[in-house]
């Protein structure tokens, strides 16, 4: 048995019955995972993404010493008033969290949830991840806690919800299996941040699995902020969304820091006039890897998707973009655009980009494009001719490239937060 599986077996031993799902109910998912094992590079979906590190890290779900609440103020987004839900090593932390939950806006950790009291939970939990991929099954078997968010019909959440995943790896390497289930009722409106932070000198492995359901005319914006440790943090982040009629789902995935990041995002447009916006920005340098796999399924007529991913790869880093778009036979008048733009800064940096379009309807507007280039040399010379030093001109041009995505965010504080991080990365 591989070291990874041995460690997983140990984790399984510590899994306890959960009020929402008993241990025996979760066994099947573990069995499934064990049977398939870890993906290898022979798997088409993992062709460019090496996860050999999983067999090298001696992880556990760990406990770690206490996290100081003062630390939180340094990792959250300043000046943004949020419902803050903190999970430490995958478990809800009452002390560090600060939020209000009520009938219109339920924010409930799984560990506190009685599923029979929440119809929408029962209806949706585990539905989208059923039959999912290996890491989702692993998550289902081992999840230590999670967050249920439900918005009642017509409820417009004023405050953004911030789910902060902290890995406490002060004492040993840590694996975190944590889930989110988000149900946005009819005509509701909410913005949610999902971010990662590791503390300590050991490795962290996050395996997040999220299900997001949008009822008719719901509007949900989801920000994945990944700005974690460059040497120690590993993130597997799978998000599945389902869009009913007239609903709008906007996903932002910012991968700005982490040794390894694999995002899988899927959007099923199952209601007419639904709209999915998928925006991604990745900056990978040193020895890091950022992999974005997206899947958009247009299943009914008249739906729209806009996908716009871009990134800068430097040093020996690797970027992978795989964007699959499926337009089913009945999905006439689908409007789907996909764009992936990359800047590669060093000879040793790599980018693998692959659009996969499967279109079975005939009256559709679908476009896609992928570009990989270097910094615009003409613009660089133009700026230098005006007295701007080379390094600064380069940084300015790269910042501009990044800002195109940041600009689409409609929360000023998040914009500023990301602008700061990116400027720091680019030395401006």
């Amino acid at each position, binding site marked *: 048995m591989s070291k990874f599986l041995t460690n997983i077996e140990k984790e399984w031993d510590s899994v306890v019955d959960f009020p929402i799902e008993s241990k025996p109910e979760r066994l099947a998912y573990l069995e499934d995972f064990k049977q398939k094992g870890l993906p290898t590079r022979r798997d088409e979906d993992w062709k460019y993404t090496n996860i050999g590190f999983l067999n090298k890290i001696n992880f556990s779900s760990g406990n770690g010493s206490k996290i100081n609440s003062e630390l939180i103020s340094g990792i959250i987004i300043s000046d943004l008033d949020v419902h803050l839900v903190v999970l430490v090593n995958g478990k809800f932390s009452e002390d560090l969290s600060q939020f209000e939950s009520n009938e219109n806006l339920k924010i409930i950790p799984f560990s506190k949830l009685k599923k029979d009291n929440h119809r929408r939970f029962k209806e949706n939990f585990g539905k989208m991840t059923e039959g999912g991929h290996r890491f989702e099954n692993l998550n289902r078997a081992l999840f230590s806690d999670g967050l249920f968010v439900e918005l009642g019909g017509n409820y417009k959440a004023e405050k953004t919800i911030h789910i902060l995943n902290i890995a406490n790896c002060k004492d040993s390497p840590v694996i975190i299996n944590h889930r989110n289930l988000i149900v946005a009722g009819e005509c509701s409106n909410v913005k949610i941040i999902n971010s990662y932070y590791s503390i300590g000198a050991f490795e962290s492995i996050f395996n997040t699995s999220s299900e997001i359901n949008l009822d008719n005319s719901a509007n949900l914006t989801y920000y994945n902020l990944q700005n974690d440790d460059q040497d120690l943090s590993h993130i597997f982040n799978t998000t599945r969304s389902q869009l009913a009629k007239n609903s709008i789902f906007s996903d932002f995935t910012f991968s700005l820091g982490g040794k390894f990041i694999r995002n899988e995002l899927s959007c099923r447009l199952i209601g007419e006039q639904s709209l999915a916006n998928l925006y991604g920005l990745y900056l990978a340098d040193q020895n890091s890897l950022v992999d974005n796999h997206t899947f958009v399924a247009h299943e009914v007529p008249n739906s729209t998707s806009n996908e716009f991913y871009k990134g800068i790869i430097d040093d020996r880093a690797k970027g992978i973009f795989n964007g699959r778009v499926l337009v089913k036979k009945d999905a006439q008048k689908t409007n789907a655009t996909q764009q992936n733009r990359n800047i590669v800064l060093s000879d040793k940096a790599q980018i693998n980009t692959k659009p996969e379009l499967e279109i079975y309807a005939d009256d559709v507007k679908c476009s896609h494009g992928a570009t990989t280039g270097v910094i*615009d*040399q*003409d*613009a660089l*010379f*133009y*700026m*230098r*001719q*005006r*007295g*701007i*030093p*080379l390094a*600064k*001109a380069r940084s*300015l*041009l790269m910042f*501009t*490239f990044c*800002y*195109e995505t940041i600009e689409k965010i409609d929360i000023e504080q998040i914009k500023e937060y990301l602008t700061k991080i990116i400027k720091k990365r680019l030395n401006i």
Partner: protein
Amino acid sequence: MSSVKIENLHASVGGVEILNGVDLEINDGEIHAIMGPNGSGKSTLASLIAGHPDYEVTSGSILLDGQDVLELEPEQRAQKGIFLAFQYPVEIPGVSNANFMKQSVNDIRKAKGLEPLKAGEFLKLMKEKAKFVEMDKSFLKRSVNDGFSGGEKKRNEVFQMAMLDPEFIIMDETDSGLDIDALRIVANGVNKIKDGKKSFIIITHYQRLLEYIVPDFVHVLSGGKIIKSGGSELALELEERGYDWLGETNDEVVA
């Protein structure tokens, strides 16, 4: 003050020789016009003076006030007062004209050991210079040259020139694509900037601009060489007679 001395300049790009022995001497405050057929090497000469990394100088020298310019990076040349108004100004989506100029003005100031301009001072300067070239304020907020019409781009070059107050100015076909009013504005701009100390190279195909900006000398660049020089009356003669009568053409470099 700025005097420029170009001696026996040979240059190539991608292994092809484009300039083969250019000599040109410009004293403080002089205006030199360079004319010549398409593809004869005019823009190449301009790019070389500005330090474009694609062009390789195989022999010869360029001195600015006695200092060897070829050793300097493009930004250092700009900081020393060399300004090139591009034949094809570059679009930079996402960088506003105002921000671009702020970086530019302050980087040049920094190189001279000056403090950056205060926000208010900078704004005032920008408004004044925009007015000077009759450029609408809305252009300051727009991304550099992004979606500008041909004429607007050229006007933006003159605006930048006014902002940076350079010493040695090369205008590469700044008059091409300008309507008559814009031409007058650009020419007035140059005439107002000219202070008897700044020196100019004006690259043009038309006598028209030279009616507004009267050059001290006119040179014909052909086949990578200056094949004739004269006073401002030479431009008129070229307009009437073309280049053929000068004998040498640039056959060898036309692809």
